[in-house]
């Protein structure tokens, strides 16, 4: 890393912090969840409300000179909600899903770093420590998923009865709109102040019996996040490399209406550049967790998930707890239940 002057060095430090803090932006930090890409009947609508409690402890390393490093530390505490509406549909004879996410909440971050005075601009306190908090809405996003192969159209009751998936592959595209809370004089914000999005290829392998109480699946979702530039970062332009992500779930029904999942999320990339200056380290984090999902009724589910990073960057510690309520409805399913009463 080149360091042109002391001011630039300070900015580099801040960018490193921002890189770390950006991980606290919920839409990046969480996985899609187990069975998120399972197909269901066309016309089914879903409303989901999630509450996430995130705790992230991070330490960075910034080389200010040969053998001269500083180690900024940060601690982030976020309380975030996700509201999601999704509709399953058939598009070009393929099962597809359109989903809209609205995200909000609050994030509190405390940062400290001791920087040798010779590296600081004149007048700066060498003991850099501050706390910031933000609240409001993050960047909303829209996601479209369509099946590439492995899943037939699911329109009628007959389609649903005949549905016994084995392997299937979807394509998903998500776009986030930069309208979330952003304050250009804060290091921590809920919005990223730039367009970004993701392309994913969710793969599912259903094994065992595709029947309530017996279902099992292995799910693998490779994806890449792409970020436009943030042109309003302390007078500079902040750029980030793509973030590569690999999400995996091994799910199994313990009983009808109760499934569990072992979850894994690995993310790498997101190298930051300030103007043309590469700063900080790229993200390299591996998260493991587990999920329990209970169907209270045929269309109401409660889900909990806990994750923590266990491999990758040793300077990062995360723990995320999630509580989710899901409500599904489909008028044709209601009719199907009436039809099958007594059978």
């Amino acid at each position, binding site marked *: 890393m080149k360091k042109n002057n002391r001011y630039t060095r300070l900015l580099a430090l801040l960018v490193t912090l921002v890189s770390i803090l950006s991980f606290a932006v919920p839409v990046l930090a969480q996985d899609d969840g187990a069975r998120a890409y399972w197909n269901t009947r066309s016309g089914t609508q879903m409303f989901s409300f999630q509450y996430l409690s995130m705790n992230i402890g991070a330490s960075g390393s910034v080389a200010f000179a040969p053998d001269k490093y500083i180690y900024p530390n940060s601690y982030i505490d976020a309380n975030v909600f996700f509201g999601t509406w999704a509709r399953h549909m058939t598009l070009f004879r393929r099962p597809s899903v359109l989903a809209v996410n609205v995200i909000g909440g609050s994030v509190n971050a405390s940062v400290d770093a001791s920087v040798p005075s010779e590296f600081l601009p004149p007048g700066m306190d060498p003991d850099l420590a501050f706390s910031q908090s933000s609240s409001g809405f993050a960047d909303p996003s829209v996601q479209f998923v369509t099946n590439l192969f492995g899943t037939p159209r699911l329109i009628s009751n*007959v389609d*649903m*009865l005949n549905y016994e998936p084995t392997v299937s592959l979807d394509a998903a595209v998500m776009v986030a709109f930069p309208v979330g809370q952003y304050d250009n004089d804060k290091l921590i914000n809920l919005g990223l102040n730039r367009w970004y999005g993701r392309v994913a290829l969710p793969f599912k392998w259903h094994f065992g*019996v595709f*029947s309530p109480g017996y279902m099992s699946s292995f799910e693998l979702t490779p994806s890449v996040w792409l970020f436009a530039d943030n042109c309003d970062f302390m007078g500079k332009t902040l750029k980030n490399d793509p973030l590569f992500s690999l999400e995996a779930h091994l799910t199994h029904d313990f009983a009808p209406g109760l499934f569990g999942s072992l979850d894994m999320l690995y993310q790498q990339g997101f190298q930051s550049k300030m103007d043309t200056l590469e700063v900080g380290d790229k993200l390299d984090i591996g998260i493991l967790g587990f999920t329990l999902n209970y169907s209270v009724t045929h269309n109401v589910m409660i889900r909990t998930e806990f994750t923590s990073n266990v491999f990758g960057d040793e300077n990062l510690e995360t723990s995320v707890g999630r509580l989710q309520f899901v409500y599904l409805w489909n008028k044709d399913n209601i009719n199907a239940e009436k*039809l099958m009463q007594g059978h």
Partner: protein
Amino acid sequence: MKNNPLTISFTALLLVGFAIGFTAADVAAQEGKRPNILLIVADDMGYSDMGCYGGEINTPVLDNLANSGVRYTNFYVSPTCSVTRSMLLSGTDNHVAGLGNMGELAAPNQVGQPGYEGALNERVASVAEILSDNGYHTYMAGKWHLGMKPNQIPHARGFERDFSTLVGGGSHFNNGWNIEWQIPKMPYTEDGRPVKKLPKNFYSSRTYTDKTLQFIEEGRADGKPFFAYMAYTAPHGPLQVPDEWLRRYKNRYDEGWDGIRHQRLARMQELGIVDKGANTADRAFFLPRSTGLAPAVRVASGRKMEIYAAMVEYMDDQIGRVFDYLKEIGEYDNTIVIFISDNGAEGNDLRGMMAGQPGTFGFLHAMNNFAENGHNSIGRKGTYAEYGPAWAQVSMTPFRLWKGQLAEGGTRSPLIVSGPGVKGAGGWNKEAVLHVMDIAPTVLELAGIQHPSTYKGREIAPVQGKSWVGMLEGKTQSPRTSADWLGWELFGNRAIRQGDWKISWLYEPFGSEDWQLFNLAEDLGEQYDLSDKFPEKRAELIALWDEYVKTNGVIIGARSPFEQASKALPNRVPEFDNYPPVRGMEAIPYQKLLEAMNK
């Protein structure tokens, strides 16, 4: 058939034999080698399920067997399995042999009475006992259901080798759940000893076949002929089949029972099993027409029939293994094969009957072990599905009702006989009225053995069945004359058949709880009671019934599983000509039937 004492050379004998029409059994006997007997019994399989009987189920092995043997259209069994098996192995009436009623369902006034032991009793000798004492190896694999006490199990009743389940039904896999809560796990015996643990890859039809092949292989060194009783438990409920066979008939039955039944009937007419003008049974009065069902309901219902069909085909495939093996060791051409089903297809809610009311042990047992019935899970280990009366009636096309009932749908079975000396390969015999009691005397005659009057120092009942050997050899069309008659009684329902005439007494709402008279030559479906038209014939047959009761010691049960049927089912509506109309299954108008019979 007795051994021929001729001692001329085999070549010369063959030439002479061909010239004068010796049967192959004769030839084998003259070689000093009597024929092997392979008796194959399906469990609850319907009359028209096999391809060679008009069914759409793929049964290439049995179809080939039919092409090399003879199919019979008037073969009778009892309405339930243990009752049939008692007659099959004893050659006499079930009320004599100890199964006057199924042991599980004996009425209070029947318990402890002679002929109602609920097991093959000591008044009879099993065909295996007699064959075993006369130089045959005797093997059994599959369902026994003729007693569980040490002196009642297959090994004690003449089978030198066996791998048997002693009870009536349960899981087809190695979890072994019995449908009866009193004995939660199905008891199995192997060579007379309890089986402690079923093989890991146990599946009924496969394992019974494996064991049969093992027994034959291990016993063939001494050159003695064998009698192998393969009592498959397929396709008895719970409908289960190995996973790789589950979707073999996927969506084959989505169109519903009426359409499939119509197609079967058309094929049966093409095959000549059913005359084109014959009156066939209407769909049972309480069943909806399948065309009126929502598509999803038809698919859900059809899934059960898919599994049933897969079970039948799987069994057919396993029978093929036996035939292949016999050909490999050079015994197939010296083996008489008899294939039957033990009763009509299962249209009752057996699981419901066994589970009983909530709060009982039976209900708890069913909920714990047989509750899973999901659309995609049924047919697998740990599930319980039955296909119900509508599909049972398809399996019993063109007859009325199903297992348990003394209608033709409960008592007609397919019958194929093939092997050395069986004349008329590939043909049909539609004249002979045959009964499962006939098989024991037939087997004994094929083996050249007289049925004894005593066995191990005790007098035993004579056989009531009639040997088919003359018929098989083409010397007669039937072992019975038009004066011979057959009788049945089970659960209080009763029937007599003499020639084309039949009377039956069935509990309401399936019958009138009075004698009804049918002419089966015109009315295969037993749709029109001719009692008023032919009162003398009815009286004649009732007199035969009285004789049947006296001869066999029949005790009408004080209780019956059908005694509440009229309350459980909707009222039977009066039948009108062609109403309700059913696609392809229109009844012959009553007036036309009477006109035809008066001609």
